[in-house]
């Protein structure tokens, strides 16, 4: 839907031959006068107009965009404490910037500046500081060990969180805006000398090419700048964790922060990165490696288990070992549907439960859990609706899908499971393998910011395997990943 709107907007723009959006661009013509600016903000009832008759001064601002302290300190108090004669002196202070034209003024007001209209001219004073959430834990990426502060919706806070962790003047921040109405600020962070400048250039081009009316979240931004809009998988990793962002910067990747979004984008990303978490690095390396392998196992289970069950019970009964045979037949014998229907029903129910739980407030969510548990776990089997072995399989794949750290990736994998399910139900193992082949062909095509998505498996970079498939000991993690194509590959000069 959103894409459709954006296409429509693009088409409209092309027709009118203007690159800017008429709704948001103020007319540049005319002198910067109070009247003129007020006209621009016609019907904006939230605009505050404050007058200081003794100075013949007018203040225009959005008070919800201001930091009250800054406003008081930089604007109000100086103005109240002076006489008209001293005004000249005051305006020399650095916070008073003369407004250039109407566009400049309007943008200034929108961005939290106070516009000061004086007989001498118009000045803008920065007092930006809207209400913001305090720094909290991330709910979608909670952690046991490691830093608990997560990004929030404030760009300044997020930049601050990163800066305070990387005290280097080589950490560069490039700022762009995107969104024709929203004018959302987007910052691209990279470490000079570590990140590959080709990527910086590429992402700049892509951000500049965005023609979308407004942007709401970093996860949405990833889809606007990615290489394959039709890809099944997320092509950029997103995270709310500060430690992830910092470690990826250190690996030579770029971090893109969108204003008003707690999810920062890491670019380029590889498919396998979606299975790593910072916790791996906070555990001992053997434990961390085991956890990582567990996650890959979960990946296999979540896409394969139910499809294989369906394929085997539909076509390949001979693959069932004899110890399972009778119990499986017994539990299947009361089910009136073929395995594929049975599995689709159960998988569908689980997905609905999960979706319902995600939307509902926690308290009701628990009720859903209990109802779902009873319906699925007991009643469905007792009623002869499904076999209990399928329940185990469905439950295992659901659990396994939650093991995958990235919720977006987990969603993609669940969708794939349905595709595989249908193929296995139709053609057994053959369909299953064809489905896997299809996924592999699709995966191999994908790139993330132009870099191969399946690196380090394809193309092969064995040196990276130690930090992707397992979590090697720190002395062995001495190189930046090949995907970053960093000019400075050595990461760790520590000896054993």
């Amino acid at each position, binding site marked *: 839907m959103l894409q459709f709107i954006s296409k429509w907007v693009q088409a409209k723009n092309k027709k009118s031959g203007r690159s800017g959006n008429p709704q948001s661009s103020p007319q540049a013509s005319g002198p910067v006068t109070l009247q003129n600016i007020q006209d621009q903000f016609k019907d904006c009832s939230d605009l505050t107009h404050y007058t200081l008759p003794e100075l013949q001064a007018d203040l225009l601002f959005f008070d919800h965009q201001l930091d009250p302290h800054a406003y008081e300190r930089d604007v109000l108090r100086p103005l109240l404490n002076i006489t008209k004669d001293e005004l000249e002196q005051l305006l020399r202070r650095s916070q008073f910037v003369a407004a250039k034209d109407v566009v400049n003024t309007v943008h200034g007001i929108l961005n939290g500046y106070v516009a000061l209209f004086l007989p001498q001219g118009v000045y803008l004073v920065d007092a930006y500081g809207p209400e913001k959430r305090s720094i909290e834990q991330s709910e979608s990426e909670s952690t046991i060990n490691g830093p608990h502060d997560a990004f929030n919706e404030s760009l300044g806070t997020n930049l601050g969180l990163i800066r305070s962790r990387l005290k280097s003047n080589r950490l560069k921040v490039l700022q762009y805006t995107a969104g024709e109405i929203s004018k959302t600020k987007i910052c691209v962070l990279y470490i000079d000398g570590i990140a590959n400048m080709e990527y910086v250039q590429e992402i700049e081009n892509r951000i500049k090419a965005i023609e979308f009316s407004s942007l709401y979240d970093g996860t949405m931004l990833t889809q606007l700048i990615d290489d394959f809009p039709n890809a099944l998988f997320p092509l950029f990793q997103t995270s709310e964790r500060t430690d992830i962002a910092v470690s990826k910067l250190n690996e030579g990747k770029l971090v893109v922060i969108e204003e008003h979004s707690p999810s920062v984008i890491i670019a380029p990303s590889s498919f396998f990165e979606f299975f790593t978490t910072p916790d791996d690095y906070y555990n001992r390396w053997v434990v961390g490696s085991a956890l990582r392998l567990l996650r890959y196992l979960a990946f296999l289970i979540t896409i394969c288990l139910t499809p294989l069950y369906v394929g085997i*019970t539909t*076509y390949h009964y*001979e693959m069932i070992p004899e110890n399972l*045979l009778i119990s499986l037949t017994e539990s*299947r014998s009361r*089910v009136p549907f073929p395995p594929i229907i049975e599995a689709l029903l159960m998988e569908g129910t689980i997905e609905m439960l999960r979706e319902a739980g995600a939307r509902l407030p926690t308290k009701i969510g628990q009720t859903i859990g209990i109802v779902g548990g009873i319906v699925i776990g007991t009643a469905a089997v007792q009623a002869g609706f499904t076999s209990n072995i399928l329940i185990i399989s469905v439950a295992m794949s659901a659990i396994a899908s939650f093991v995958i750290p990235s919720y977006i990736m987990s969603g993609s994998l669940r969708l794939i499971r349905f*595709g595989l399910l*249908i193929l296995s139900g139709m053609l057994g193992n053959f369909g299953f393998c064809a489905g896997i082949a299809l996924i592999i062909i699709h995966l191999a095509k994908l790139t993330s910011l132009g870099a191969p998505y399946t690196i380090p498996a394809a193309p092969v970079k064995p040196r990276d395997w130690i930090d992707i498939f397992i979590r090697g000991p720190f002395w062995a993690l001495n190189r930046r990943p090949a995907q970053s194509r960093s000019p400075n590959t050595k990461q760790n000069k520590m000896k054993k």
Partner: protein
Amino acid sequence: MHHRGRLCVLALFFLAIAAGCSSDRNILERVGYVRTVGFDAEKDNMIRVTVNIPLIIAEANETRQQEEIFSKVVRSSKEARILMSRRTSRKMVSGQINTILFNEELSRRGLWSHMDSLLRDFTISKRTEIAVVEESARDIIETHLPGHSRTNQYIDRMLKKEFETQTLPHVLLHHFCRDYFDEGRDPITPFLSKSGKDLEVSGIALFKKDRMVGKLSANDIFYFSIIYHDQDRGEFTLGLNRPELYSISFHAINNTTRKTISKTPDGRYRADIRINIHGGVTEYIGNLKMSTSERTELEHILSRHIEEECNRVVKKLQQLGVDSIGIGQYVRNKVSYQEWKAFYKDNYIQDMDIVVHTNFKVKNFGNFFY
């Protein structure tokens, strides 16, 4: 580009659905998978095929386990399948056969013509157990022996247990075929018979190619096994009417068997089979003290006795002209191709001198130090 890709994927799904709506589905609970097949000899070269199909019936909230048993006199096993499938409510499939029984008479006629359909069928596992039964396979499959689990499970579990404890050489369909094709070895199968209310592994059926020519009794299985292959477990018991050794039982038998071939001056081939056996005593009735040097004496008596018995078994094999212990393979590895071709003929084992040497060692004698 993307458009075409998506079209292709759609076409793929469509084809999957089209191809999938075939009759090749074998949904687990809707097929009747045969577990046990029995072949009996009938008059005029006909055979009687008996199959056992477990049946699970779902009624309301209960499931019951039953068996369907069909028996037909036919020319070939696939013919039987077609005739029987008219009588069952489910599609008969052979992918879960775990035991194949032949009766002795049929085995003596030759099995290969029936093997053909077993080997040609992709779905039949090479891990299927095969056994020769004394009287009628039908009888064994049809009767539910009281006090035992269902017959198909009973035979299957019993044979598996015997293989596991190495009280019987591990012989499955795969081994039977392999030895059938091997020039230097003849196949064997377990031999089952009914004794009272139970089934019993009562020996080993010896085959010459695909024809059964004789059988070893249950008492000979141990001697045969130690010649046949190395073992690392298993147990046996023996008794002699001597004061030193009235009865003795061993467990944890561990033997290594070396077969060496040499040529005697008169141009015959001689095979020396050297067997080293270790075993732990679990029971001993006799007047020797194992904790003293008398143990060597006991070991000596045992070695001589086992040697005699082994030689007797080998003699029997030679009389029947079957090389069930694979001496031919060792000869083949010793001589040149021309010599082997000259040597290899029916009953070659009768032209050989085969001598078994055994050396028995008591590994331990248990908790009772005497």
